[in-house]
């Protein structure tokens, strides 16, 4: 019973962190058709912004929920202006250009921030579940993931911006003909995706730590989750994270964390054999 509850918490935590890692990428891919290879570095920059801000004396929550997302959103908007805007519709070129950016960010972070950054300890201490105990921060990560999902859903479904963004996603030419400034919508969407990535990087930083190359450890799982999710950025990512996170955690539980990752990848490849357009390419079509 207690062991069951503990496993449940760990599975939920795996699902939540997978969702957080992937959702920024999913928004940008689902809404704009852009695969951002520098996504892992967005998470890395979010983590660094949070940790550096805390060490500079900024309040923990302010650093996590304001400083990190804003920093990465700003960088995201600049990148959209300088690089991605020139490559819309050339999806492969976008992948390659953002891959170059990713290497550039890793290089710059290695030279300036270095590999010896002191981390930030996770708050909340330990929580007892019967005979076992687990980190209270796990529950916090689960709550943040749920809040991000709800917040983004409300934004896309119930606001005027959400309506325009979804319309632009379905048919950019028609949206432009109806007077929408498509470029501005893309710019804001990319900024939102970057902000969510920055937040995710900050939320995971107390557990994972921050080093310039940390993005690489996130990126494989993020890509797989988004691809398995399919066309709908929120529903797809949430479903894929639930499925793959559970497989990952179940395998980790009986073997090692790395084998959990291998199981995640194998499950994804087999799944794509039968659902080549991802989960939401077949089910729940037209959802956000």
């Amino acid at each position, binding site marked *: 019973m207690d062991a069951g509850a503990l496993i449940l918490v760990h599975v939920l935590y795996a699902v939540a962190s997978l969702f957080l890692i992937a959702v920024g990428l999913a928004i940008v891919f689902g809404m704009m058709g852009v695969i951002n290879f520098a996504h892992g570095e967005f998470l890395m920059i979010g983590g660094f912004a949070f940790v550096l801000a805390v060490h500079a004396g900024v309040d923990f929550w302010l650093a996590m929920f304001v400083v990190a997302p804003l920093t990465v959103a700003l960088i995201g908007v600049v990148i959209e202006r300088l690089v991605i805007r020139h490559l819309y519709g050339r999806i492969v070129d976008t992948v390659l*250009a953002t891959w*170059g950016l990713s290497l550039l960010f890793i*290089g710059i972070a290695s030279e300036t921030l270095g590999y010896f950054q002191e981390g930030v300890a996770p708050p909340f201490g330990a929580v007892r579940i019967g005979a076992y105990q687990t980190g209270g921060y796990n529950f916090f990560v689960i709550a943040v993931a749920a809040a991000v999902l709800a917040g983004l859903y409300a934004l896309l479904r119930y606001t005027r911006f959400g309506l325009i963004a979804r319309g632009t996603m379905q048919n950019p030419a028609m949206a432009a003909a109806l007077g929408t400034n498509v470029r501005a919508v893309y710019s804001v969407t990319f900024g939102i995706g970057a902000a969510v990535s920055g937040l995710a990087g900050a939320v995971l930083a107390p557990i994972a730590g921050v080093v310039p190359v940390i993005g690489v450890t996130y990126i494989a799982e993020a890509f797989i989750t988004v*691809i398995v999710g399919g066309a709908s950025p929120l529903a797809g990512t949430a479903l894929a994270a639930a499925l793959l996170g559970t497989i990952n955690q179940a395998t980790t539980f009986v073997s090692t964390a*790395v084998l959990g990752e291998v199981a995640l990848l194998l499950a994804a*490849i087999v799944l794509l054999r039968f659902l*080549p357009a991802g989960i939401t390419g077949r089910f729940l079509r037209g959802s956000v």
Partner: protein
Amino acid sequence: MRRELRAPGFLAAAGLGLVLIAALPQWAEVYTIFNLSVYAVLATLALSLGLVWGMGGLLGFGQSAFFGLGGYAYAIAAINFAGSGPGLLAAIVLPVLAAAVIGYFAFFGRISDVYFAVISLTVSLILYNLINTTSGAAYRIGQAPLGGYNGIPSVPPLNLPFAGTPLSFEGTFYAAAGLLLAVYLALRLLMRSRFGRVVVSVRESETRAELLGYDVRLYKLGVFLIGAAVAGAAGAFYAAWGAFIGPDVFSIGFAAQIIVWVLLGGLGTLIGPVIGCFVVQALTAWLGEFEGSNPNIVLGVLFLAAVMLLPKGIVPTLRSATGRLMRARAAAGPREPAA
């Protein structure tokens, strides 16, 4: 294909390649020869992606996975069986089997090209993580330790068939450069064959090729398998050259390097990836001498520059430029009086 064998361009390429290989060790220093050997091996790897991506239109971003698998298979087989013959065989068989599994799920599932790119890259990254955890005495295959992030040291060098003597520096150069030339010429012939022509037509228009009755999935799988075999062989030569293979060949940085070679050299050509590889390797080696230069920054800038400024690559850009020049020259020349 038979016509290509007698074509002047093909014969010239073969002759020039042979002369270069024979002449270089006569006047270059041993150190240069040693470095040129590994450039040739890496250029062979670039050729394999040039085939898969440039000719087949498949975004095999994880070509490094087959290179690494080839290197590891060679190291393990060569240590266990003494001699490079079984190693080379294993270095081709294992990557081809891995490619067959990935290719089956990707091409028969009809995954879109960008999805395929991401999946193939992810395979490489997962192998990186997997190999990194295999340190310690528990992880060994026969007499070969996997060594985790330390890699496998003292990989046996290449030796002459049926003779135990390992190759000298010059011998390794002849073998590596010979492999590059042989692969280049063989791929040229392949692209002239019926198979090669269908592969290109699939790249140009999948639907049209399918409507003409070709099973697109089989042709994609075929070109992917050939690419994996070439990359695996290159991986074996790489492990033998440095007497070492480590998990870094599976890292995202190494995968990115291969893409830059091919992209900068030019998609859709075979000589482009080779030139791109030599140019980028020479450039990074030269820039590496400066203090404070970070290989990731260099590679990142090259990557961005290639996509934004030279999207077609060196060779196709040069070709179209010389073509324009010749046409301009012809137009400006004196007109022949009409007969």
